[in-house]
Each structure stands twice: as C-alpha cells, then as structure tokens.
C-alpha cells in the first residue's frame, strides 16, 4: 500500500490543480434581526382555503408521513414555528406551547384541538431531532412536530405568512384559529399561556360539551349543545339546532311503547297539521326516546313515517350519556322506559315562557295552550 501511494503521488504531483474558493457560510451578523411587529402585535387574518396547498406532505417526529390538511381539517389549531438549534427564543416558545397544551388538555384529548409545531429548518431538523427536542419538555400531552422537504415547508410557511428567508430572523409567532374559519389570530408565542388559551377557547363552537361552552346565554348553558341524532341520521345540538329562538314541544316516548305513546304521537300529528308552515321555522316538536338502545335511527325513521312527521318534528336519540343528559334537563329521565310520563313541555325559548301540558288531554285544549305560548312576546 505504502509503495502504491508513493507511486501515485509521484505521478500526480504534476497534475493540474484545482482549488475551490473558500466561502465561510454567513452566520452571525444579520442573525436575529427582529420582526417585532409580527411578534408583539396581535393581529387577525384570514388563512384562506388550506385545501389548495399543493402536496404539502410532511413528516412527524415519529417519522410518519402526514398531510398538513388532514391534521387540521375541521379542527381548532394552535401552530408555532421553531428550529431545534435556535437557543434563545425557541425553548421558551416550546415551554409556553406545552403549558398551553396542559391548559387545553381536554380539547386536545377530544381531538377538537390540534397543536402543531413546524420546523422552519427542515434540512437540519430530522424527525429524531424534533422528537428529542420535544421530549425535553417532559409533557404527556399529544403534540405533533413537523418537518419535511424544504420546498414543502416553505410553501406552507408562505401560505401561513410566516416565511422568512433566514431562519435566524424568525419571530416568536403563534397562530391560533379554526380550519375553514376566517379570523385567525397571529400573536406573540411568548405571551402568557393563559391569554393564549383564552383566545383559543373563542374558536370552539359550543358543542357536545356540558361545562366549558363559551356562552353567556343561561339557557344555552343550562341545556347545552349536547349532540343528539334525529330520525334522518343527522346530528343536532340540543340548544343551538333544536331550541334556539323556537317554540318547542318536548315529549318523551319510545317506539315499542304501546300504551300512551301512540296517543301522544297521534295528538302531535294533529298539532303539526294545525301549525302548518310554522313547523320548522317557528316551532319544533322534539320527541325524545327513553330507550336509546332500541331506538336507533332506522326505528325512529319508520316510527316517524307512521305519524307523517314533517319538517320541524324531530324524533331524537343519541349516545347514552347524551340522550340521558337531555332527558334529565327536561326532567324526563327515567330508570326504566315504561316509567316515562305523558306530559308535554311547551316552551317559548325566546321569552322563556314554559308550560306543562297533559299529553293525553283533548287535542284542542293542547292546541290552545301551544298557541298561547307561541303568542307570548317580550313586550
């Protein structure tokens, strides 16, 4: 070997020379110029349609391929931007983000909220680097960190209007919003996490949540927007979809009930006829099953056809805890299905006038009561 090396050297000492010019990669100097306006001012913007981002294929910290749009579709989103070799502002941003996650834990666990961290230095930040970086914060909340092809990441950053040519110039920005929604918030990612949580909470539609809905309407807070399903298989929120601004007639029933139910339903059919065009627009009839196990959508649909139910008459079922919760709110919750009553609750949600009417009474008497509730006004 030695000999060989010597021979080669001897031969090539005379070979043409090439010397690549030395360019020290620029660092330092322009590093970290500030974008304080972006960081410190809270501003709102419209994200536009994220679906039109072409092929933004990213990789999460576990090395799995993910599509950005799939991650955020239909969700409230908190999005921040880091690179793992950024030392001064990124660890504090990470800490803030983790705290925000802890505050929003329920929303993250119910998949209503997705918390994403995007690397702005995807060439350096391999999945394993991102994973190690996130693990330093010792959090247990689900958190997705993203890297990917540099072009894909840049496309995304430009779309989100957070792109900077030099990664060192990046500002501690956090974006909060809802996919498809208009008023996204761009704010300082180092801000107090409690404030960030407040902003985030504003993006949730009150939905399927009995406690933390962001409403100040006492009725809505009482009835909540627990999610039920009607005879057409559509999900309806108790307050927002079934009750808001309406006059409602609420009764308990179940499809296999052969005693009082057929009488009540026949009566309701007549009331529906009487109300005509008001049905759906002004008045909802809400028949709540007390046997959610039997009464699935098909049963309700078949049953509703017997009584020619039309627009505005809903036969409702739902997940055990949801339908039971709704029955409970109307005082109709029973231990066994046969124990339900035959009282119609007639309420004007706007004026808060509520009447209890015997569902087995004469139809005309009931109609009179219903009309009086409809006629009630705030003046």
């Amino acid at each position: 070997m030695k000999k060989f090396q010597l021979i080669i050297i001897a031969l090539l000492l005379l070979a043409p020379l090439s010397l690549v010019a030395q360019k020290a990669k620029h660092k330092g100097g322009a590093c970290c110029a500030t974008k304080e306006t972006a960081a410190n001012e809270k501003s709102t913007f419209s994200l536009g349609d994220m679906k039109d981002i072409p092929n933004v294929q990213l990789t999460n910290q576990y090395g799995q391929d993910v599509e950005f749009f799939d991650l955020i579709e239909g969700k409230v989103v908190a999005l921040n931007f880091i690179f793992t070799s950024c030392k001064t502002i990124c660890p504090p941003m990470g800490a803030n983000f983790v705290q925000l996650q802890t505050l929003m834990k329920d929303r993250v666990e119910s998949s209503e909220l997705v918390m994403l961290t995007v690397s702005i230095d995807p060439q350096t930040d391999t999945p394993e680097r991102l994973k190690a970086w996130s693990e330093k914060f010792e959090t247990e909340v689900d958190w997705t960190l993203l890297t990917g092809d540099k072009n894909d990441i840049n496309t995304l950053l430009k779309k989100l209007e957070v792109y900077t040519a030099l990664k060192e110039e990046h500002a501690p920005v956090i974006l909060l919003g809802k996919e498809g929604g208009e008023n996204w918030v761009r704010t300082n990612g180092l801000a107090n996490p409690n404030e960030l949580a407040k902003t985030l909470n504003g993006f949730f539609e009150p939905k399927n949540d009995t406690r933390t809905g962001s409403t100040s309407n006492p009725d809505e807070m009482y009835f909540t927007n627990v999610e039920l399903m009607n005879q057409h298989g559509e999900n309806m929120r108790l307050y927002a979809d079934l009750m808001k601004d309406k006059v409602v007639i609420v009764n308990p029933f179940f499809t296999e009930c052969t005693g009082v139910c057929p009488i009540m339903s026949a009566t309701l059919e007549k009331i529906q006829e009487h109300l005509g065009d008001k049905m759906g627009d002004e008045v909802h009839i809400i028949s709540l099953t007390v046997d959610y196990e039997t009464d699935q959508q098909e049963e309700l649909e078949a049953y509703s056809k017997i009584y020619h139910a039309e627009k505005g008459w809903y036969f409702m079922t739902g997940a055990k805890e949801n339908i039971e919760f709704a029955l409970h709110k109307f005082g109709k919750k029973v231990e066994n299905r046969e124990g339900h009553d035959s009282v119609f609750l007639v309420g004007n949600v706007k004026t808060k006038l509520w009447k209890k009417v015997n569902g087995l009474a004469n139809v005309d008497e009931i109609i009179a009561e219903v009309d009086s509730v409809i006629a009630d006004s705030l003046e």
Partner: protein
Amino acid sequence: MQHRQSIALLLVLLFVLMGASGPVLLSQLTKQQLAGKDVYSKGIGVSEVKITAQMSGVSVPATVMACVNCHNADGSGNPEGGITPSNITWKELTKNYGGQLQNQRKRPAYTERTLRNAISTGMDPAGNELHSAMPRYEMSREDMDNLISYLKVLGNSGEKGVTDETLQIGVALPEKTNSPNDKSESLRQLVNAYIKELNNGGGIYNRKVSVQFFTEASAVDENELFMIVGEGSSDMEKAINQAQIPSLLSHSQKRTTQGFKNPYAFYVYPSWVGQSTSLLQFSKEKGMLSKGTTLTVLYEDIPSKKGVVDELFSHCKKHYGIEPTLIPMGSNDITEISQEIGDKDIVLYLGAPNLGNTLLKQLELNDKHPFILVPGSITGIDLYNVPDSFKNKVFVGFPTWPSERTPDAKKKYETLKAKYVLPNSWKASQWEMLSQLVTAEEILKRTGRNLYQEKVKENFETLFQYANGLSPALSYDLNRRVGSNLMYIIGFDSAKSQIKLITTLNSPEN
C-alpha cells in the same frame, strides 16, 4: 540553530515516548466553579432536587433552558427573534456605574446578593422586573453558590486544556510498530515539526500549542485536551462525545454518525463503508454490477473490518438486492479462495494490503478474471505490479488525490520536510495529517482568543467549501459530519502504462 532545534525536537519526542501521560494541564477552574459551569451550561446541579426555570407561569426543567442558551458560553448574550439577553460577565454586571437593560432602563451594579435575587426572582438591583424572556430559576442553595462562583469567572474561558499561555491539543495516532518505517513515528515527526513552526511564529493568539499524542480512546478523557486531530475509530468517537471535545478525524470505519448523535467528531472523508459503497456505485454505473452479479467481499479478519463488512452486507441487500459472500482471508486461504471466485464475479477487496497482488496472481493461474474493487485508504494493491490480464479490471477508490494540492501547500510541506528532516515513508499520510493540522489551526483562529469548545464545534458547522490547498474542500453543518464526499476512482491505463483517474463521484454517505 539547526542543531538546537533538532535537540528540542528530540526532547519533545523523548518526553512523549517516556511519559505516557505527558504534561497534564490542570483545569483553571476550582471544583466549585466546575459544578457551577454545569449549572450554567447544562442546567444540571449537584443537588437531588432538579433545577427548574419559570417563565410566564410555566415551569420547565432547567435542562431545557440552561443559561448558555441565551447568554452564550462566554456570557456575551445571544440575540434572537427580538430578544437580547444581557452580557453577564462579572465585569459587566459589577461596573460601578451600573448597566443598561434591554428596554434602555438603567440599573445599578450587581452585588452577589442582588445577583442571586435576579436569577431567582427576576428583579434587577433597582427592584425592577427583568424582561420576561429571562427565566426565574429555582435551585438549591448549593447549586446557586456554585453558579455564582462560576459567574465570577465567566468569560475567562476556563476550558479544558487552555491556560493564558498554552493550548493543548491531542493527536490520535495509529499503534506504534517495530518497523523502521513506522507510520505512527512518521506522523509524530510531522506534527512536531508543524507545531514547532507554529509556536515559533507566536502560536495561536499568543498561546503556545502543546501536543499530546495518544492511540487509545481512554486517553481522550484522561488528558486535558481542548481539541483533537488524527485518526478515528468508533471507540474514539464515543470518548470524544462523552468528553465534548471538538475533533477533526480522518474517517470513521463504520458508517459515519450524523451530528445529532455525534456532535463533536468531524470527519474529513467518508467512512470505510462509505468509500466501499462508492466503489460499488461506480461498478453499477459502469454496468459491471447488476442484480444477478455474484459479489464477494474478501476481508482481513480483524474487528474493525468485520464491523465494516457487516454493514456492507446489509447495504448490498438493500440497494442492489444482492447478498454478497463474505470471506475472511489470511495468507493461507488464497489458493482455496481463488478457486471459489468466478470469472465474471466482482470482488470487493478489504484484505491485508500485502496480500492483494498475491491474490491476483493466484486468480490468473486459475484463469479467473473478476473485477476487483479496492478502497485505497483501507487496503491497497500495487497497480503497477498486477498481472497483465487484470490491468483493466482493478479499480481503486481514494477520498483524496494529489491534484487537490496547490503549489503553496506543496511548498509548505517541502519546507517542513527539509527543515525538520521528515522521513520519506508514509508521505500520503503525512500530507493528510498536515491538512488536518492546517484546518484545525484555521478553526482555532476563527474562534478567537476567547476559546470555547462549543464555539469550535459551531465553527466547524459553518465551514462551507473550505479548501486548505491540501485536500478536497470541506463542508459541515449541524447534521453533516463528513467534510468531503468526493471519491476518486483510479485505474490503469495499459496503453500508456500508467495510472489514470477514471472518474470522481460522491460517496452516498451524508
């Protein structure tokens, strides 16, 4: 004059040969300051209770937010994204006319007591709140004491192997042999000559450089070394990362570990595996290697090569769908092996350097003429003495080539050689070592008088197409640990009866 220098050189040599441990520099820091340095640069204390950092109501382990992140190893402050951490060297903090904070507010000079207060409650000596980007730390009394003692000397380096007058560098050499042309000895002489010249010229920013030669990985930790150059190995890499000493090594044997898992060991060339796979890639491009090809890897049965062979096996399977036959080869096995190899096969030769030509002769006797691929920095074959029938069948890959050398660089070497009477043996390796020394000197100079190991590492990571006139241009970044991917493929030009450069390609490593 000449005479005195030789004596000096001799003395240095003697010293190194006799005293295995050599001149050990004691760290300038006291035990307490060293403990404080751990708090400062890692967020780790000596107490059981972990140190935590609080920021806008959020509490995280201090390991996420060590002081060094924001204030730098020298206390100078690392501005980023609109946040400007203060210079917190003792001198700055205690100026009797006070200082100024990020928002232009003035504050009085710090005392030890007000400094503790600032770190734990975020209040400056005037009782005003520091910017919220400065975390508030919760730590034991003892950890705080240690930290304060370190802050008092922050900015005065205090790094391993550095004093005001000296800088100690480790040079990793191959094992010494009894051969009169010992490689280790040749390199040692070159290094001593280079360092002597350097010190005669004033050293590096007025520090004289001293050298600690070693071969065993264990020496990395036992000595106070600021930086290391020389030959690498997996053990060495591990020790280097443990001790966090920025190092420039020639190449690793197994596939090079990227920066994430290997922050401190920078390699000049692709690993043995990378060099070998480059040759395979070449043979594929030239149509020698295809899916049905029988590929045999002949190797010297020593641990370093065994590991390489295993990685090569999985590489071939994955990239070419070929399972190569792996055969260990000693001098007694040649006859048998040459019978097993087919005329159309490819042989990747990782055997002993002195057996390559014997193997070819034996193959010729058996009328077998497979292609022979030889990674030149792992083993060797004397191209001038291969049998005629193999002249166009042997390809040698090198990660560097004399054409890289500029006239200035050549002059530099020749001057050293003449002045210090350097041996004629192992010249290519001497060039290699010279190249490493030049690069190391450049990096140290870029780092400045205020030397920090972390800064040296970062300076390596900003090298981009750095050419020192001796070897191919080097580029590193946070992940990249192979400076040059280039491979030169050499063959024999039978018409002209001389060696020729066939092509260059980029090693798939990195």
